[in-house]
């Protein structure tokens, strides 16, 4: 499952805006968990079958973007191609206190914006599966003078089971070719 970007066709009625608000709140809660280092709570937002994917992005000739710009899910190397287990491992590593790339811990802020619902199933009012797009700006400051900005798009599929929302699929499109950071220790 890999969601391609396109202009949403969903009808923007009251049910849509209610759903979008719910999604926004979910993303803000998630961002707060990460920024406040409540990593275990954050992991609970990740579905057991999550696909967490960040491709590498290449400079390609005009007309080849659709096919060649981004590395593909489950094909060759990417930055991240994670499941729940590896995400848990990454959290576990930070919690050892001796993961030196995060010891002392970085200061990180997640800004999530341009949130849209691109489709909802079975419909916006009763959605159990919600496809979304948003922009992120993740600011990381580490030790004294080290700082990084990660800016890009995110395409998430959220699933709702009763009152509980979780991320089932996350595609992170970082606007960089050569990674302009020594590490990707932040979650996206």
């Amino acid at each position, binding site marked *: 499952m890999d969601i391609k970007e396109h202009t949403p066709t969903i009808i923007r009625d009251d049910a849509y805006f209610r759903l979008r608000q719910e999604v926004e709140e979910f993303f803000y809660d998630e961002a707060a968990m990460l920024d406040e280092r409540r990593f275990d709570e954050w992991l609970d937002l990740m579905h057991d079958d999550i696909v967490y994917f960040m491709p590498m992005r290449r400079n*390609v000739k005009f007309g080849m973007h659709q096919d060649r710009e981004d590395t593909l899910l489950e094909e060759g*190397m*990417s930055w*991240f191609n994670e499941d729940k287990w590896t995400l848990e491992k990454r959290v576990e*590593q930070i919690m050892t206190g001796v993961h*030196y*790339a995060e010891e002392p811990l970085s200061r990180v802020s997640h800004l999530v914006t341009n949130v849209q619902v691109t489709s909802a199933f079975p419909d916006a009012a009763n959605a159990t599966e919600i496809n979304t797009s948003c922009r992120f700006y993740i600011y990381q400051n580490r030790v004294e003078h080290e700082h990084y900005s990660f800016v890009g798009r995110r395409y998430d599929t959220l699933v709702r089971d009763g009152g509980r929302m979780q991320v089932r699929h996350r595609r992170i499109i970082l606007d960089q070719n050569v990674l302009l950071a020594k*590490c990707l220790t932040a979650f996206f």
Partner: protein
Amino acid sequence: MNKVFDATSMTDLDEGVLDRGAFVSEEIYRQELQTVFTRAWLFVGHESQIPNPGDFFSSRMGEESVILVRDKASVIHVFLNSCRHRGMKVCRYDQGNTSLFTCPYHAWTYATDGKVRGIPQYKELYDGVLDREKWSLIEVPKMVNYKGTIWASWDENAPDFETYLGEAKLHLDQALDCRDGRPGGSEVIGVHKWVFPSNWKFAAENFLGDSYHNPSHRSVDLIGIGPSARQGIKGRRDNELEMAKHVWIGFAAGHGVHSAVQAMGAEYVSQFANDPEIEAYFRHCHEERNQRLGDDARLLPFTGTIFPNTSYHGRQPRNLCVWHPHSPTETEGWRFFFVDADAPTKVKDFLRRFYMRYSGPAGMTEQDDMENWLYATKASTGTIARRYAFNYQLARDQAHLDPEVNGLTVRGRVNTKMTEHMARGYYRRWKAYLDCADWDELLGRNDPRFAATKKGSPQ
């Protein structure tokens, strides 16, 4: 050329001290670009990245952009990526297929064999003046396809690549050859590119066999991320070398490796336990390799650096990494990940996922390396800091030439304990490059430490 780096009391590799200027000085850095990266053999790419005529991959040699291309006649070339007219890059794509490299500036075009194809308004403006034959793309004078890996040197007098490798060849081979012992047969499944604020030699030195830095990786070792970690096995990889004798080897031309020799008749150490099918595959490869290589199969690779800036991880994970210099205090890492081209898809997928969680800026292991390299560089730039040399005395005067280890003769200067003699040897050779020494000197042919090797082989 002016010597700006002289051996002083701050640098004495026999004593085991090295001036921090090697890692932070702008002058030394400029000299490295002029004397090291213009002469040494540098890794450029892999033939699997350019399988068809017209395929190209944009690469680098030192600070400079080069194009690795397979021309229409299927001949592989490495060109400087700069138009002969005003220097504009003729290729700004990472990879692709083309019949022409077109300069966007004044629209000169070059064929895939580097020859000028078109110059706008040639007849009216250049006819009788410009000889097109003389204005091809600049091509490296020395290039080799070694088991699918492409290496190049800007020095037309450089020795051939295998001479340059010397006895280190056997160890590089362990990274490049199929897991079942067939020579070559690898393919690249992706390239990580990232920048980090550190001198490039910290990274190169790390892979020479600095196993002493193991404490940096305590976090991954504690949690377990290896190919058997889902079965509760701790560590960052499977410990197949658990019962082996580790060997740290320095070579005359400045290369260094950390490999290991299994004992005769050693039991196979189970690996890849996350998946029984993968486990069976690698067990099969192990048996095939034993059959094919006999006693030599007991030698297994861990890490190494081919002088000056190409490092490898030989088994778990498996890749070549080039440390491209940006400035004294910034480096761009390009890591090329390897699998056997004919391995089953399931095996490639398994390895790919392991490589991603281990290596590079998103890798749980190497993130901690970069933290060290950054702050070691940063804390060495100060005036006071630079008054104090780095210590390279680890296991000094303990290496032996061509010893027997577990009954196998191991060529080179070898220690079976953690040591920094590879680094001492690397910087001896590095200094010879800075001093514009001749190739005998650069290959260590005059180095008495390797005298017996010299007698025993063409090295």
